């Protein structure tokens, strides 16, 4: 119940601004439904008057006075009701579409905005795929439900109530005959839906297993070929495929059954109503002419009565998905945001240096990764951080621009704790080149200007030149306007790295963190990267997480980390002379995998 409340709260939040429109929609729906359920009454009346006319017409006594006036009046009434229902429906569905589009748009943007404000910790502790499914699955489910179910639900409920009310006011006996089977029908529908859900879940499980297998095999197809494993691969595929066959059948059967069964039950109910109605007429409970009209009216009502039941049962799973989605989204909206510290000091430039004193940190409380680290970087100096995987190198980087905050100790810029600065001013001064160069879909120019969209083309080209990538970009047919994205491989791994160096160069940060890439690039590119890195480091205070020799050798100080502790420090010569851990690493030519 609490979860339900939370889900409803999410919808309330986004729909509240449209309360006037929503109220109007409900009003229109009531009006439209009223018109819809009035029409059959007058259709019945038309029949009755027609039948009376016919009887009068046939009798010689009344032949002359027989008139179709009642019939025409009834038809006029029907026309008005039809028009009223169509017009109100038109207005209300236009309004509904509008509110749907606007509110889902706000939901999408709200979610994205929220995510942008959230802590790195959230992203590190949730898989990208899971976060993305907030967009692709949860928002999508809400979107579908908004378009197809939620407003439909309102109008169907109104219709349902209206039809019942009308039926009982017209003829209690026939009304009872129409509704009596309802519990039974709902029970059947519930049973089928439950079965269908179970088997569809089953089917999805089997299919996702098969998909997982297909994905792995096809992506590793070269291994399959080089090892001649095709037959084995087919055999395993067949086992999984057979399982899918079995589960698909039941899933399709039960989910496919709902519609014909409900349709059939509606027909059966109609048959009962007609049979019972005719019986009432024939047994003289109702006058023939009136009875004929009543039967026609109830034929329509019986169908209108069944419509909401069929609709709501088929919307059931959609609504449930939307509620689950809303719950998840509202959980995300409740997540803590990064503390921007808007009133904090503005860091304009680093004047003295950066200092880590007695820094202790763990990603979760029970697992400390850094056990008291002291590093002091004077302005303009370069520090290299080396150590095996898991030693805490990347963690140090995370603390420097407040992706995470220390548990104990301080990170200080010019003697001031980083937590005292306004976050954006801090990050403006800290440039980062990450290990895997992440680019965004768009042109090369967009990517270089990413950190400083206001940069001129001259500034951009200047940065690209320093990063040793200008020539290559110029060699492309579209030059700086070349589109880069995930799929097309205009850029090699090394070139992507150069581009990300250019991106950082353009923002001209006074403090630089460089996480060297480990991936293999060819000799020429490697040389280019080296030069680009030299260019970006020159004149800046920098922190390099090194994986290769050449960067380290030039560092002012090398800090060797192991298991969260500084085990050696000094410059290249000193450390080699000490013949310690660093010496061994060096002789074994680095690469800390």
């Amino acid at each position: 119940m609490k979860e339900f409340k939370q889900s409803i709260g999410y919808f309330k939040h986004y729909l509240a601004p449209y309360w006037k429109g929503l109220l109007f929609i409900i009003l229109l729906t009531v009006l439209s439904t009223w018109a819809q359920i009035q029409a059959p009454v007058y259709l019945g009346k038309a029949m009755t008057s027609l039948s009376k006319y016919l009887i009068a017409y046939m009798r010689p006594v009344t032949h002359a006075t027989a008139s179709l006036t009642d019939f025409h009046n009834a038809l006029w009434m029907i026309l008005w009701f039809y028009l009223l229902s169509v017009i109100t429906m038109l207005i209300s569905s236009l309004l509904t579409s509008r509110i749907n589009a606007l509110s889902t748009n706000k939901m999408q943007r709200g979610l994205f905005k929220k995510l942008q404000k959230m802590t790195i910790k959230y992203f590190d502790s949730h898989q990208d795929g899971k976060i993305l499914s907030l967009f692709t699955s949860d928002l999508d489910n809400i979107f579908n439900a908004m378009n197809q179910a939620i407003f439909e639900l309102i109008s169907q409920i109104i219709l349902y109530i209206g039809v019942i009310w009308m039926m009982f006011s017209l003829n209690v006996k026939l009304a009872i005959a129409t509704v009596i089977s309802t519990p039974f029908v709902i029970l059947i529908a519930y049973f089928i839906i439950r079965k269908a859900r179970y088997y569809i879940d089953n089917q999805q499980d089997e299919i996702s297993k098969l998909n997982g297998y297909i994905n792995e095999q096809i992506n590793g197809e070269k291994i399959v070929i080089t090892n001649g494993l095709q037959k084995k691969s087919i055999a395993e595929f067949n086992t999984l495929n057979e399982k899918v066959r079995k589960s698909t059948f039941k899933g399709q059967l039960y989910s496919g059954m709902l519609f014909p069964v409900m349709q059939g039950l509606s027909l059966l109910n109609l048959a009962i109503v007609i049979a019972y109605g005719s019986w009432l007429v024939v047994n003289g409970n109702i006058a023939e002419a009136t009875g004929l009209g009543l039967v026609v009216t109830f034929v329509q009502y019986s169908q209108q009565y069944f419509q909401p039941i069929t609709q709501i049962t088929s919307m059931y799973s959609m609504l449930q998905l939307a509620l689950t989605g809303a719950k998840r989204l509202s959980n995300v909206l409740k997540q803590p945001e990064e503390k921007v510290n808007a009133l904090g000091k503005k860091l304009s430039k680093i004047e003295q240096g950066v200092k880590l004193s007695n820094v202790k940190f763990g990603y979760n409380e029970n697992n400390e990764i850094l056990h008291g680290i002291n590093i002091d970087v004077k302005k303009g100096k370069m520090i290299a951080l080396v150590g095996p995987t898991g030693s805490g190198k990347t963690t140090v980087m995370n603390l420097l621009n407040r992706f995470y905050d220390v548990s104990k100790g301080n990170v200080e810029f010019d003697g001031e704790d980083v937590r005292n600065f306004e976050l954006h001013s801090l990050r403006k001064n800290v440039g980062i080149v990450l290990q895997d160069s992440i680019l965004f879909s768009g042109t090369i120019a967009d990517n270089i200007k990413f950190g400083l969209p206001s940069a001129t083309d001259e500034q951009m080209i200047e940065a690209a030149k320093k990063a040793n990538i200008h020539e290559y970009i110029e060699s492309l047919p579209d030059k700086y306007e070349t589109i880069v994205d995930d799929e097309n491989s205009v850029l090699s791994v090394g070139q992507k790295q150069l581009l990300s160096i250019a991106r950082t160069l353009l923002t001209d940060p006074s403090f630089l963190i460089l996480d060297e890439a480990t991936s293999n690039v060819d000799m020429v590119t490697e040389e280019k990267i080296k030069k680009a890195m030299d260019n970006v480091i020159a004149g800046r205070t920098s922190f390099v997480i090194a994986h290769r020799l050449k960067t380290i050798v030039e560092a002012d100080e090398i800090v060797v980390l192991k298991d969260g502790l500084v085990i050696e420090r000094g410059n290249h010569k000193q450390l080699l002379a000490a013949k310690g851990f660093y010496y061994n690493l060096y002789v074994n030519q680095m690469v800390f995998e």
Partner: protein
Amino acid sequence: MIILKPYLKQNFAAIIGAIFSVAILAGSTLWQPRLLQTIMKAIIANNRSQVYQYGIQLIVLAIIGIIAGIASTFFSATVAQSVTTDLRAALYRKIQSFSFGNIEKFTAGSLVVRLINDMNQILNLVMTMLTQLLRIPILFIGAFILGILTIPRLWWIEILMIVLILSLSGIVFSRMGNLFGKFQKWLDKMNTVAKESMQGIRVIKSFNQEENETKKFATTANELKNLNLTIGYLFSLMIPLFMLISNFMILMSVYFIGEKIASHPSDLAAIASFISYLMQLMFAIIIGAMTMTMASRGMIALKRVKEVLDTNPDIKFSDTKEKKVASVNADIELANVSFAYPNAKELTLKKISCEINAGDFVGIVGSTGSGKTTLAQLIARLYDPQDGHVKIGGIDLKDIAEKDLRETVSFVLQKAILFSGTIEDNLKQGKHNATDDDMNWAIEVAQAKEFIDGYSDGLKHRIEERSANLSGGQKQRLSIARGIVGKPKILILDDSTSALDAKSEKKVQQALETQLKESTVIMIAEKISSVIKADKILVLDKGELVGTGTHHELLKTSLVYQEIYNAQLSKVGGQINERI
């Protein structure tokens, strides 16, 4: 559609069942208004026994409808699952017959999409084909004829309605299909922006670009909103319009019947059923139009699947059972070999001739794009050369059975790909009947023993999907172990030790030297230090073989080799290379 034929044939009985039950279902829907009319007549005639009789008939008809509905779902589901399972299996078998070239042409990603998403679409297509495609025409024609039979003089109302509904749904659904396509495109775009911002969150935050990213996202989201509005408005217009048409038709029918009721008194009982037929006619058209829109998506999927099924593997192996290479000395000979990738303008390899003696350690060096990997792939017959021959032990590769060749030549790819499963499962891919001794030997040679011994379950340790629980170095070691577990006569290592530190790399090499003495080892290397001890080094430059010999010979004779060597020497730390 034709490709479905053989699969449909296999399910002949079920299809007949489906057709039969759908026909009954449609028939019962159509007959119901007719019965209603008879009942009305009976009421007017005050014929009690007839009313009972028809009343019961009506109930029976409804029950028949339910049963037929369930039966039709049953048969359709049977056919749909059977057809898609079989087609998917055929597709998979086809892909397994593909060569490197075929795979690269389609790309692995696209093949996965075809096996998964497209097959899903086809499942839906078959399902709707069987449940709707037949039902709609029966309902349409039936309702039309029965409607006319009910009140013949009002035939023109039916025609008028068909014309109106058809043209309206024609306009709406064709526009809708277009809009939905666009909508999907923008939705994908929006999701891409979201995905990229998740992956690049550190970049965004470190450049303070949160607000800009939010704006960028809003632009896409707003584009989507506008489309959404258009689609929504279109739908909002469509449904009331359909209602308006049907309502007017009903009203017109009632009016025209009423006006002439004196001369056609029996029409009184027919009004309700005539209205029902009009409604059935309308729904048949609307559902038909919707089904067509859906089916067109399925057809596209079918076309994409057909494209794969129609592709022939571009390498065909000799189907001889005889193990030819197994018995001969595995000298390799390349004679005048030229090769170009499909659609490439330039040759990747140009007239290469060389010989590699069995048991030698051979290095291939050259800059990126010089054709090193391509050359090695030709030896494993992953591609066929356009010109020239590749022979092992004097036998042309084209005359060797696939199994025979794979057992003789083992190729360890540059990118170490492992499959989810145990370490043992992965090793056995190299030799399906490998014993524990074989595997222990292989992991020792590949320097993987140390970390595997660290697992309490040893070789039974599970590798996660995408090998998430292994480092790059560990993956490469296992990939090498898999390559050597079958003790192949020829082992090709395509830069397979790049993620290993120098010490481990050296250990692997030493172990290969002592443990695989008989085997020819061909090693593609970025670093000259890796192949400095080779019996023979092949130097490639822009697809040409520009030098052959040992390290010392090449230092004297090959200019290209000298350049590469000097470039690597001059690097800081180059002296280390020398030391190793």
